[in-house]
């Protein structure tokens, strides 16, 4: 088993790089976990990625999986805390200064001006997810039902999502 300190330091460093953008994460994790420390085999790494995508958390939750392998439950805990520590701290700093900076006229109007781009990116995420997971009529029907429920009813999203999970299990098993 790897020492908790090593796990902590490794994942904290990954967390720092991760702040620059999530896209470098997969090759980087592969390099560190499979090639450098040999905490995982390549197959385990790929299975871990698949497993991380099953959960609501960000993909970096693979840190939990690797930490578990490297140091049991304490390892999983330390790895998870350390990989997310840098971005949480940074976001708190952003939040702290945001309230102040927003009051400066030029910055406030710049922030408001870029909102359409944010909306465009939200729509793009729907598109990208759709290309990856809508493969037949069945999926499109579920999509239409979901859209209608979210748009015109006040049912809690939680029920709709869990209900859809159940439908998925029934239809695909």
């Amino acid at each position: 088993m790897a020492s908790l300190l090593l796990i902590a330091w490794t994942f904290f460093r990954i967390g720092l790089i991760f702040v620059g953008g999530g896209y470098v994460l997969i090759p980087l994790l592969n390099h560190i976990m499979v090639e450098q420390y040999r905490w995982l085999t390549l197959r385990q790494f790929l299975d871990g990625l698949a497993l991380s995508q099953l959960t609501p958390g960000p993909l970096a939750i693979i840190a939990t999986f690797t930490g578990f392998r490297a140091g049991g439950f304490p390892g999983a805990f330390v790895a998870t805390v350390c990989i997310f520590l840098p971005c949480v701290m940074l976001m708190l700093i952003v939040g702290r200064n945001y309230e102040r900076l927003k009051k400066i006229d030029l910055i406030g109007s710049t922030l408001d001006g870029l909102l359409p781009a944010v909306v465009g990116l939200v729509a793009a995420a729907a598109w990208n997810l759709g290309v990856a997971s809508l493969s037949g009529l069945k999926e499109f029907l579920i999509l239409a039902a979901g859209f209608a429920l979210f748009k015109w009813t006040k049912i809690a999203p939680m029920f709709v999502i869990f209900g859809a999970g159940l439908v998925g299990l029934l239809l695909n098993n």
Partner: protein
Amino acid sequence: MHNSTHKVRLTDIFLTFVKIGVTGFGGGMAIVALVERICVREKNWISSEEFLHGLAFGQILGPFSLNVCTFTGHHLRGIRGGIIAAVGFMLPSFLLVTLLSWIYFTYDKLPQLQAALKGTNPVVIGLIIVVAIDMGRKQIKGWSGMLMAVAAFCASVFFKLNAAWILLGAALWSLCSAYYRRRFT
């Protein structure tokens, strides 16, 4: 808008984000859409504009699903609120992955949950579309806004550009036009 004399309780923040952390299968924008429904629409904890500002920062700074939770929590109750929202959101995923890892490393088998995701993914796409439409109605005004939204969409979908670069580009454009308006009108 939330009233600063009636502070939102930390337990409320915690429980709300645990709920989001339990529900948000699909990750990423699915979480953003859920936080928007629950914290902006339902509870009025944060304005739509502020939430989108937080999302912009969050996308530039890495894992934006976690970042919007931290940002919203911080908006409500400062540093403590931010940390509690982040912990609440991550807790269910952490427990789930720990459990699944234990099963995987003990029995060398991946739990077959993919079938459930085949049902949740389309519904989550529906949710994201609804949120995008509502946001767009509110935030996109006039031709220049429309153009920027379409440009960001295309840059992401067809040119596969990183969201952080798209937003930095939009910020630069927006800064220049704000400066221009100030200077010359």
